[in-house]
């Protein structure tokens, strides 16, 4: 019996060409990859250069010395709504005062001619009173001493932002949300995206109460991003630093804040896949 063995392509030139073709194709792919990377780098450099240029020109010359102190600026952002109310109250009060002032001198004029000396004395008294108040005010400013420990025991701590500010802050933060760029893959659906975005935007409010920093980390403009994977019931299955701030304690505290905020609200089918996949990045602070 003839044994049937699978015929092998032993033809010399066929093998040769297949080999050659593989090499050529591999080379082509390599060239595409490296060419793409180089093109991307050049593009990125241009973009960075433009950014540098833009930021250099945006660094506007200081036209004048600042009029508000640092602390005043900090308090301003938290007292904006109160200030608005105050201004409104002032506006309604002022016209009343003006009318009253106008009325008085008219009444006094006939009296003036009769008793000029009284009026001037009264004026002098008023002026000296003003001076006294001013002087005593100045003296009081100088009286602040370091020695006496402050009796702040009863004051409740409000942290950096008081209750009156949460409304404003929420407004500001919802504007700080970065929207994602063009979608490269996936079945992006308009409805799905907004539900996902809605869910993602709820997370900061839940994480923020746990987000605390000691003073030596506060004003350093550090920025960290934590990538979070959630289970369907909202529990944090995994939270890792996606972009480090450079300071390990800062990074650790941001991850701890995320873990402390677990469990988040349960996921829904429509966007669950993306959240399970770790598509959410929490930025501390942005």
């Amino acid at each position, binding site marked *: 019996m003839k044994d049937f063995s699978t015929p092998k392509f032993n033809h010399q030139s066929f093998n040769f060409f*297949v*080999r050659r073709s*593989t090499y050529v194709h*591999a080379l082509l*792919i390599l060239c595409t*990859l490296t060419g*793409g990377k180089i093109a991307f780098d050049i593009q990125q450099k241009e973009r960075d250069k433009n950014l540098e240029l833009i930021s250099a020109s945006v660094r506007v010359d*200081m036209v004048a*010395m*600042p*009029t*508000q*102190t*640092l*602390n005043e600026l900090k308090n301003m952002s938290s007292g904006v709504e109160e200030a608005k109310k105050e201004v409104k109250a002032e506006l309604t009060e002022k016209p009343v005062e003006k009318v009253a002032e106008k009325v008085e001198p008219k009444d006094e004029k006939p009296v003036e001619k009769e008793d000029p000396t009284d009026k001037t004395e009264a004026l002098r008294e008023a002026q000296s009173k003003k001076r006294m108040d001013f*002087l005593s005010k*100045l*003296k009081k*400013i*100088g009286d*602040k*001493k*370091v*020695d006496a*420990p*402050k009796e*702040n025991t009863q004051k409740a*701590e409000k*942290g*950096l932002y008081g209750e009156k500010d949460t409304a404003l802050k929420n407004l500001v933060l919802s504007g*700080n*949300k*970065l929207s*994602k*760029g063009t*979608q*490269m893959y996936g079945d992006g659906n308009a409805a799905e995206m907004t539900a996902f*975005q809605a869910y*993602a935007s709820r*997370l*900061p409010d839940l*994480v*923020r109460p746990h*987000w*605390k*920093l*000691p*003073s030596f980390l*506060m004003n350093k403009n550090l920025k960290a991003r934590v990538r979070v994977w959630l289970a369907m019931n909202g529990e944090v299955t995994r939270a890792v630093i996606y972009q480090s701030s450079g300071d390990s304690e800062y990074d650790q*505290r*941001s991850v701890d*804040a995320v873990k402390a905020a677990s469990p988040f609200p349960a996921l829904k089918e429509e966007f669950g896949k993306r959240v399970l996949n770790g*598509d*959410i*990045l*929490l*930025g*501390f*602070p*942005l």
Partner: protein
Amino acid sequence: MKKLLLVFILLLSATAFAQDDNLTIVAVGDATLEKDKMVVQDPYTSGSLTAAQKNSAMELVKLLRNDFAFYQKKFFLVESAQNNTASRQTTNYDYWNGKGIRYLGTASVDKSGVDMKVTVVFEDIKNRKQIYNSSMTTSISNMRRTGHEMANKVYKQIIGKDSIFNSKITFVSDRNTRGRKTVKEVYMMDFDGKNVVQLTNHAGIVMSPTMSADGRWLVYSLISNTGKKRNNDLYLMDMRTKTATVLSNKEGVNSGAVFLTGGHSIALTLTVSGNAEIYEMNINTKELRKITNHFASDVDPSITADGTLMTFLSDRPGKAMIYTMDPRGTEKDVKRISFVGQFNATPRFSPDGKEIVFSSWLDNSFDLFRISSDGQGLSRLTKDFGSNEDPSYSNDGEFITFTSQRVISRARADQNIYIMDRDGGILGAITSGFGNCISPRWYNF
């Protein structure tokens, strides 16, 4: 053949990894400041102490409370109830945890021969462990120094770096002025204003004192009231022997000195060449080297701790503006920092060299401003607080001391030294009723 196909497939799949992740970023926003509550209990004193020693024990506790209260952003001092036991008991963590207290400090003072043995214990309530437990023997006169040293060690345990508790501030006061003869001398005090010690005794007018980082040398300008020539000379005082020698008496101004890294040379302003220039002078050989070389006035040098950057005031753009340069060369890497301000003065570096605090004339008085050393982030620190000049950073960069002038009447204005935190939160005055106190400089030897 199969190997080639495998390689081919791998190369193809490599492209799949090249895609960027498509992630959504959500901002959490700014963090809240974490202030820890601290309680320092009244002292536990043994019955065998004298009344004066018991007072000293109370002074120690007040000192501990006051020291930590300086760091308003880190600690919140809570008043404690009176002690209901005669001696210190083991800490009841649950009790203090319930009150929200993070740190608990106790001081026990017993008799030790003629002096006192002070035991200070600090507990971290949240982590349930003792972070400091140390005893020192001290006398009444040395109690404050002991207290500051212990407080510094506790602070270092908690925060991880040195505090200001061991630091000193040198300043100039005119309290020895009699009638029309103005006398200004250099004094040194603890950072909290206590323990004032007079350093010079020339009966002349002393200005701009500066000390070397190790505390061995004191350099100052003196306009002597004796002698015919009323020149502004530079003197060097050896703090060990308290002898003063003339360092530079060139014609004109010899002033505004600051020590360079190493402690062997100083940078000072001399007008001997006709206009004010900044020179480097070796204090042993008195050799001079020009650091600035410009026809405009260059004054008021301040050097970073590592000696690589110097900030100074220069008239070159027509107005007094702040510049930085490398002090190791001449006119090397000169960079303009400030572009606004009618009259800027006394730029001083923070210890990490990243920020410059300076005084500027605005709205009929001087106020303090802060700018980072690359010229960005100009911010205002004081406002409506008298006329504030001559700032100096603390050794840990958290506080700034300055002199503030208040007008009392048409003929009288008072100058006192104040401390504020680096963002402009005024803590208060540390001199009072000591003449006009100016030129504060903060040191930690």
